[in-house]
């Protein structure tokens, strides 16, 4: 029976694709709900994933068909069913199913409803294909597919200039990362035996030993470069906060739970390769740490609920990279498991938090600015309750999911200096530093999450009204273009005003409750029971990773819990009831506050450097194009015209005899040339 699921593992990408196609092509014509085929396809894919989960093995691969066969480049369409893959598949399809159910309520009445679900189906196809692929090139193809879907979904409301710009930004920043991936693949192709890019060949012991020192350093580096763009790490994280311009279910599915984890997956998949370069691992850890801290600091002052969640996502992805980078020497196995575990739990509670934010947004008539509403706990009881569970999980409170995974990451970071010392690496102390920064970030995480929670759900009740001083200036023309564009689209057809302030329909709260349940249980079900690590043992290359003995560290658990609880307590004192203290604090450290509110001017920095450079380059290219190339082409085009008008047209004089004589003479000349040359 289990063999059946492995043999038919191609169904996992295929069913969502089929659902998406049916939704996109037939839903409008035959007037059925476009969410149904996609939800059904993804749910069935989830069942197949569960079946495949049972029979995952490190060497299980399924050859589906040929893909590329050109000389020495032979790339089959081959799927791999090992621990890591089935883990990702189950998580992706499960979260996707719930998000699709939620979206069928959230997107109700949108004119682009079938298009939305067609794109979601296409996205799940790409994402599942990405994790199933058994070689780097196929992964790369799906990697691009995921990027395209992300682009189209961020720009779903493409009539809004801000959404179009955000989509473009996400796409371009991801391109920068894709260059790294492409270079890594080229390099791998040229060095691995038989030019075989499949994982079992690239990650085999023999291949890894045969790599030159340069390749050992640069290939992991290039892979990490690719991961920074997809998984929103410094310096390429800038697209993710802007991606919140898309519909909220998209943010929940793609920019929190699934797509952004592709980079983590790639590095985790390539763990045996990355483990060859401790310097790159240190770099990964430092970048992850920087990202986690920076994003957490920005999230402290944001007033847009979705943006807080976006920066929180960036921050948590930074956590995962911290863990991946900590896998030096004997910590390798623990680090990879910790990163994947955090990825796994994070997917649940972050999707939950995003969907709950979407539910708030839905109920508030698409107002998402936390200064414009307050005390919603009575009006939105389910949303409030589930959001609280998600926030507790994110803050890492025992015994929720975030606690266990964050603890494993901290454990890996704690063990890393020792392991680095064993390997005679001189930079072990950096990991100790990162460990403390990570704990500080955990404190910040708890603080900003609960700041958002208290600002939204606590205190005296207040609903958004146009008279609010914080409301954007009412301009009847600009209004629909920017701030309320969502309202305009999502609730066209009588879903506007009368829903404001009411709890979302069950189709939206139900997925929230399921996700909240998962956020509570996945931590202790999978973590301390060893079930998660046991499953990951069925992963390619996992056996080769050194297994150190790492006991559960009480100190770390207690310190991180204290940090989390301190953050919650601080947020409670400052924000549970409206008080002037936060603004007074903000005024006392005004430069820092401004810097955080303005995202440390990273966007402006990009504008000043990269954007200006590229725009200058583009302007120069344009001038060159107009002045040189266009002139050249026009000159070439003008030559025949001049030649025809001034020279040749004189000979078309209408005299047949002249033509005949000219032809005869020409032939005669040609013959003479042929004879005497």
């Amino acid at each position, binding site marked *: 029976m289990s063999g059946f699921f492995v043999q038919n593992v191609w169904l996992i990408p295929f069913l969502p694709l089929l659902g998406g196609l049916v939704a996109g092509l037939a839903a409008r014509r035959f007037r059925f709900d476009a969410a149904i085929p996609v939800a059904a396809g993804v749910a069935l894919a989830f069942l197949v994933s569960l079946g495949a989960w049972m029979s995952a093995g490190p060497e299980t691969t399924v050859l589906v068909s040929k893909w590329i066969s050109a000389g020495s480049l032979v790339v089959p369409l081959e799927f791999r069913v090992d621990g890591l893959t089935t883990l990702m598949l189950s998580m992706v399809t499960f979260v996707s199913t719930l998000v699709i159910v939620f979206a069928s309520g959230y997107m109700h009445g949108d004119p682009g409803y079938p298009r939305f679900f067609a794109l979601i189906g296409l996205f799940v196809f790409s994402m599942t294909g990405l994790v199933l692929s058994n070689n780097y090139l196929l992964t790369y193809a799906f990697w691009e597919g995921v990027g395209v879907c992300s682009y189209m979904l961020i720009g779903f409301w493409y009539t809004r200039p801000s959404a179009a710009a955000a989509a473009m930004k996400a796409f371009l920043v991801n391109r920068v990362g894709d260059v790294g991936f492409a270079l890594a693949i080229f390099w791998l192709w040229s060095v691995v035996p038989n030019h075989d890019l499949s994982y079992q060949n690239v990650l085999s012991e023999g291949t890894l030993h045969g790599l030159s020192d340069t390749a050992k350093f640069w290939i992991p580096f290039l892979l990490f470069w690719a991961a920074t763009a997809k998984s929103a790490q410094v310096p390429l994280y800038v697209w993710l906060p802007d991606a919140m311009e898309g519909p909220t279910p998209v943010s929940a599915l793609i920019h929190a739970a699934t797509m952004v984890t592709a980079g983590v997956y790639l590095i985790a998949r390539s763990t045996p390769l990355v483990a060859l370069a401790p310097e790159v691992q240190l770099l990964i850890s430092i970048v992850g740490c920087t990202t986690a801290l920076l994003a957490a600091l920005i999230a402290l002052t944001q007033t847009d609920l979705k943006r807080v969640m976006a920066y929180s996502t960036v921050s948590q992805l930074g956590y995962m990279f911290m863990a991946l980078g900590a896998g030096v020497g004997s910590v390798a196995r623990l680090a990879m498991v910790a990163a994947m575990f955090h990825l796994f739990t994070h997917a649940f509670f972050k999707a939950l938090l995003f969907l709950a934010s979407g539910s708030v947004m839905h109920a508030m008539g698409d107002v998402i600015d936390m200064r414009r509403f307050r005390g919603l706990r009575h009006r939105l009881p389910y949303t409030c309750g589930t959001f609280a569970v998600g926030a507790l999980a994110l803050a890492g409170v025992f015994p929720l999911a975030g606690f266990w995974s964050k603890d494993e990451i901290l454990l890996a970071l704690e063990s890393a200096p020792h392991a680095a010392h064993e390997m005679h690496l001189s930079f072990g102390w950096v990991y100790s530093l990162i460990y403390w920064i990570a704990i500080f970030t955990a404190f910040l995480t708890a603080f900003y999450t609960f700041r958002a929670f208290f600002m939204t759900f606590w205190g005296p009740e207040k609903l958004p009204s146009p008279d609010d001083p914080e409301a954007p200036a009412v301009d009847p023309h600009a209004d629909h273009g920017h701030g309320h564009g969502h309202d305009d689209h999502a609730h066209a057809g009588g879903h506007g005003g009368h829903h404001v302030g009411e709890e979302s329909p069950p189709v939206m709260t139900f997925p929230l409750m399921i996700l909240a349940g998962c956020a509570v249980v996945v931590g202790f079900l999978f973590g301390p029971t060893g079930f998660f690590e046991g499953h990951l043992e069925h992963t390619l290359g996992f056996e080769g990773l050194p297994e150190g003995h790492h006991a559960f560290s009480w100190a770390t658990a207690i310190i991180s819990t204290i940090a989390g609880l301190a953050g919650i307590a601080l947020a409670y004192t400052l924000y549970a009831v409206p008080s002037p203290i936060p603004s007074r604090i903000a005024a006392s450290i005004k430069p820092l506050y401004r810097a955080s509110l303005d995202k440390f001017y990273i966007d402006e920095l990009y504008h000043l450097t990269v954007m200006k450079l590229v725009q200058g380059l583009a302007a120069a290219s344009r001038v060159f194009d107009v002045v040189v190339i266009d002139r050249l082409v026009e000159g070439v085009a003008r030559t025949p015209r001049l030649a025809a008008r001034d020279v040749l*047209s*004189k000979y*078309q*004089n*209408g*005299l*047949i*005899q002249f033509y*005949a*004589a000219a032809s*005869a003479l020409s032939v005669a000349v040609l013959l003479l040339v042929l004879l005497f040359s």
Partner: protein
Amino acid sequence: MTDPFTIELLRNYLLVGAALFALGMLGFIARRNLIVMFLSAEMMLQGVALSLVAFGRYHGNWSGQIFTIVILTVAACEASIAMALVVVLYNRRSSLDVTLWQDVREAGVSTSDLADEAAEAAPIDDEAGVESYPHLTPAGVEPAHPIQPWTERRR
């Protein structure tokens, strides 16, 4: 095997072919009557065909013959189309003089209009009609010709 078709014989054939071709070309260039020009062109074709047959015979294979048969077929088709065109052209200008069509040329190119000279030399019959038929050498009795739609239109 003794082949009676020697190179000298081939030369004679080629000479005849070349003569046909040259005469045809001369006629094509020198004459202004459309039908005569067409006949000249056919003569050039026959000169070439003759050369092909001769070469085929000399080399002892059939390709020259086959090629010639194809040429003849094509020439027949071409002749029917060309004659149809000649009739149309004649109906337009009531004359077979090719120089009357000299205005079919690139606009703005000035050449001495030979048609004008021709018109001066022999003015076109004003009363164009059934009577004005090509002035070929009369041979036999002129047939009775019924009035055709195109002549109808021309009146």
